[in-house]
């Protein structure tokens, strides 16, 4: 509780300091450089850290934060997709097939998210904060456990007829082994069903969803980890663009706020990728998990008083 109280005071002081426009934008960009830097070192997208941190520790409207979070996820994905598509590391056919349910549900998620805040007002914002807080704690737990992700998983013997008829099985060149790795896609229908849920969450909370898409591709559909990560990046670019448009058309996208954040995340991610080989990444992962736990608890703490008072 002491940490949370200290953070609350820090938030108030920061808010008072940021009355100067240039100082505000510089501080915002610096904060985003740090987020992008840490996210890049920890191997997660900037959006998954940006949205919870901004919603937990600033008074900025949740709709503005979520639309910017989606813009960050989209931009990071679109900028970094090129080498993966050139090297055939991303399975573009699978991305196209996955994009249909993911995009549809990302749009539905963003509509639900915006509807909750516009209809229920401050109670709606608290509902979003509480749900995001719980989700962020769950993501932190997922990062801690890490699942049983494997670099090149061995798929079950039975073949997926749907995946075969859509010619989703492919191959990629594994640089470390200097050989062509062939892989099969299985459990396509279950994978697509899971991606519906992931899209919904991504659109609703303005988060990039690599943390959920990679396990779906790798552990459920048996894609090699590198292919799963690369395909997930391309998929986020398509799906989150659609969700972002819902926020843009509703007027929730504020360029004056979004641009310093986008720039900061790009610079931070570039710095992170350069420093990555020299840093012990396990410490960074622990740091990310701690930040996510604090942000999750703060979101829950912010939302509960109003919701408890609102309930009959």
């Amino acid at each position, binding site marked *: 509780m002491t940490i949370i109280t200290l953070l609350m005071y820090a938030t108030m002081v920061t*808010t008072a300091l*940021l*009355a100067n*426009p*240039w100082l*505000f934008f510089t501080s915002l960009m610096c904060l985003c450089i740090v987020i992008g830097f840490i996210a890049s070192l920890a191997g997660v997208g900037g959006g998954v850290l940006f949205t919870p941190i901004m919603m937990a520790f*600033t*008074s*900025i*409207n949740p*709709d*503005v934060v979520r*639309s910017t979070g989606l*813009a960050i996820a989209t*931009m990071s994905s*679109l*900028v970094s*997709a*090129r080498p993966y*598509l*050139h090297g*055939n590391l*991303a399975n*573009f*056919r699978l991305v*196209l*097939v996955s994009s*249909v349910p993911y*995009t*549809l549900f990302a*749009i539905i998620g963003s509509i639900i998210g*915006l*509807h909750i*805040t*516009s209809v229920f007002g401050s109670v709606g914002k608290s509902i979003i904060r509480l749900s995001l807080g719980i989700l962020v704690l769950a993501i932190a737990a997922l990062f801690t456990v890490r699942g049983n992700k494997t670099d090149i998983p061995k798929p079950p013997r039975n073949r997926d007829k749907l995946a075969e008829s859509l010619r989703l*099985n*492919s*191959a*990629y060149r594994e640089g470390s082994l200097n050989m*062509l790795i*062939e892989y099969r896609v299985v459990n396509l229908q279950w994978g697509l069903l899971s991606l519906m849920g992931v899209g919904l969450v991504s659109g609703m909370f303005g988060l990039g969803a690599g943390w959920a898409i990679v396990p779906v591709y790798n552990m459920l559909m048996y894609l090699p980890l590198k292919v799963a990560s690369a395909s997930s990046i391309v998929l986020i*670019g*398509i799906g989150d*663009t*659609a969700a972002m*448009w*819902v926020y*843009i*058309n*509703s*007027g*929730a*996208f*504020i*360029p*004056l*706020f*979004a*641009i310093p954040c*986008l720039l900061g995340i790009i610079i931070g991610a570039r710095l992170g990728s350069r420093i990555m080989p020299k840093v012990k990444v396990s410490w960074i992962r622990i740091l990310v998990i701690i930040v996510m736990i604090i942000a999750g608890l703060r979101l829950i703490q912010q939302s509960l008083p109003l919701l408890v008072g609102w309930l009959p």
Partner: protein
Amino acid sequence: MSIEKSAIREESGSRIYGDVVYVLVLVSILLLIIGCVTVMLRHSNATFCTIGGLLSGDPPNELKSCYTGVIMAGLNELENIGMTIFGSTVIIGLLLTTIVLMLRKDTIYAIISLALVAILLISALGIININLS
């Protein structure tokens, strides 16, 4: 067709998408930066108003009202163009991919790609719109 050949065939199709979105995103970000810096330099009132609104948690509609007035309209155009290009990169990329897939007579994927373009267009044209108060 072997998996290897199929993968190589796939690569040439996805390449176009990757290149197009990469270039368009960079162009749009550049336009957005120019737009924002111009607003900040020329109209400090609008900037103060936006920052004040952001920090006090004002809803987006009230933040947008900082941008009203004839002077702002011209400057705001640059931001709007940047935002439109940023949001349309995937649509343009997928449209070009659809053309390539059609030329290669890959009907199933051309249809899937076209369906995605349709979904994205529905979202982009504001057919689905939530009024934020």
